[in-house]
């Protein structure tokens, strides 16, 4: 984990909310990736997918810890830890984008989603490396190399599947069609982002979308895949309105921890 600055961190609800969005994206995606353990198409992919999961989970831990400190003590004077935030928050308090919570589906869909998320996280973390918030900048500076690896990995699979066999082309195109509409939530602006852009904390969604489009278009062309044409733009994750499947993800994630209130692990 990236060491976090221990001083000069007052309560800052805006930055906390932004760190939570980033942390929730990373945690939920890490959880989905880890579901591939012992069921990937070849052993090398078990290693690779678990590696991607670990990178996301590692970033999530730092970001949630950071968010907990910025949220300040709760009514009982308790500063929320990464585990409090991961295991004790209810569904409406999770602010990850819907894209990362979607079921991984088959390997084609998982890789299509990885392409869309990684092509976003690469410019995002590159920009956040110079965030005015030291905690976020520290996490981003470390994660930027990891997400670059993730983008390479996704790119190479999407190209191989798209330009592989008829079946693989059909499957990865289907997966892409299914996840594509959810990507645009990543580039939404809202008052929180506006305020944090002004303070130099957040990354500019428009600039990131531009880089995302360039990367994704290039990879899809090489993969002989068609850019989906739908204009449907599902949204809601950033304000806690999630998809049906997310409740099941949380149930699995949180059940054991919640079954033993106050226990140490």
């Amino acid at each position, binding site marked *: 984990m990236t060491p976090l600055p221990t001083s000069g961190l007052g309560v800052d609800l805006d930055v906390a909310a932004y760190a939570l969005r980033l942390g929730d994206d990373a945690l939920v995606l890490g959880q989905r990736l*880890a579901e591939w*353990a012992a069921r990937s198409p070849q052993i090398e992919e078990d290693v690779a997918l678990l590696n991607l999961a670990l990178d996301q989970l*590692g970033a999530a831990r730092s970001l*949630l810890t950071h968010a907990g400190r910025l949220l300040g003590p709760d009514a009982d004077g308790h500063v929320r830890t990464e585990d409090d935030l991961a295991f004790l928050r209810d569904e409406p308090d999770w602010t990850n984008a819907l894209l990362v919570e979607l079921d991984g589906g088959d390997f084609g869909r998982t890789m299509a989603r990885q392409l869309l998320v990684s092509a976003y996280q690469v410019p995002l973390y590159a920009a956040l490396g110079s965030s005015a918030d030291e905690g976020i900048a520290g996490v981003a500076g470390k994660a930027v190399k990891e997400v670059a690896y993730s983008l390479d990995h996704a790119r190479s699979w999407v190209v*191989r599947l798209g330009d592989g066999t008829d079946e693989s082309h059909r499957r990865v195109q289907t997966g892409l069609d299914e996840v594509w509409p959810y990507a645009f939530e990543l580039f939404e602006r809202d008052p929180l982002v506006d305020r944090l852009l002004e303070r130099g904390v957040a990354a500019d969604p428009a600039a990131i979308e531009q880089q995302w489009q360039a990367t994704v278009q290039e990879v899809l062309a090489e993969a002989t895949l068609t850019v989906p044409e739908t204009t449907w733009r599902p949204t809601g994750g950033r304000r806690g309105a999630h998809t049906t499947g997310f409740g099941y993800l949380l149930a699995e994630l949180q059940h054991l921890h919640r079954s033993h209130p106050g226990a140490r692990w």
Partner: protein
Amino acid sequence: MAPVQTQSTDELERAFQDAVDADGRIEPRDWMPEGYRRTLVRQIAQHAHSEIIGMQPEGNWITRAPSLRRKCILVAKVQDEAGHGLYLYSAAETLGVDREELLDLLHTGRQKYSTIFNYPTTSWADVAAIGWLVDGAAIMNQVPLTRCSYGPYARAMVRVCKEESFHQRQGFEAMSVLAQGTPAQRRMAQDALDRWWWPSLMMFGPSDTDSPNSARSMAWGIKRFSNDELRQRFVDATVPQAEHLGLTVPDPDLRFDEATGHYAFGEIDWTEFATVMRGDGPCNRERLAHRVGAHEDGAWVREAAAAYAAKQAGRGAREAA
């Protein structure tokens, strides 16, 4: 290389045995008796299969791990086991077989994997118990293999053992947190020890009196210690750890024998061992079906990768022309 064949098989065999006796390493290009090669292929393959199948019982708890730290440790561990599988299949491949062939033998039940992975992981404490006991037993079995006569296997084992001992320490640490935890956590820890203790002792294989191939493997430098010797070492190392945790080893006959300086322990239920070996343990069917399912579900991905590589090779050839 044909002129080498001027040596008679007897001479080759003698030179091989001399090298083994002198603690030398046999390398893939060296002459070796066919039985040695076959024994190694089987042993390394079964070891590789155990690593791969072993991902399932613990992988089962990744999505439910009770803290983010534990989740990361577990993901990393399961990832290590996949890596161990890869090194071991590569070591087997130096003996002239390929991974596809070996996986097929696993999937069709013609090659086995460790019986320990045919037990269910029904609580979080099982993850801790597996790290502590199963990785602990694996280390006892595998450390001597770092000096095994076959070079590629010995070298793979050096790397594997380093990681297994890390897993063992993490498992023990996770177990000690549970043992010092709430009453529910302590109960979970004791229950896991109750269920994993005897199957862990069975990991060392049949008793020496019933282990027909052991003597030959010893002569070949593949095996250094007998099953019973290794089992005794494991018991001697582990019982004090259980005491330290305040947990009870589920063996009423267990006692420290002052005269021998070792723990004496009760009779292993060899009927259970034979049952699990034969395929009738609690999870044999489930483990194999899961493994075969993952392999079949991934076939289209592997085919796509091969088709793409062939297309690329064709494109390269056309460009070169």
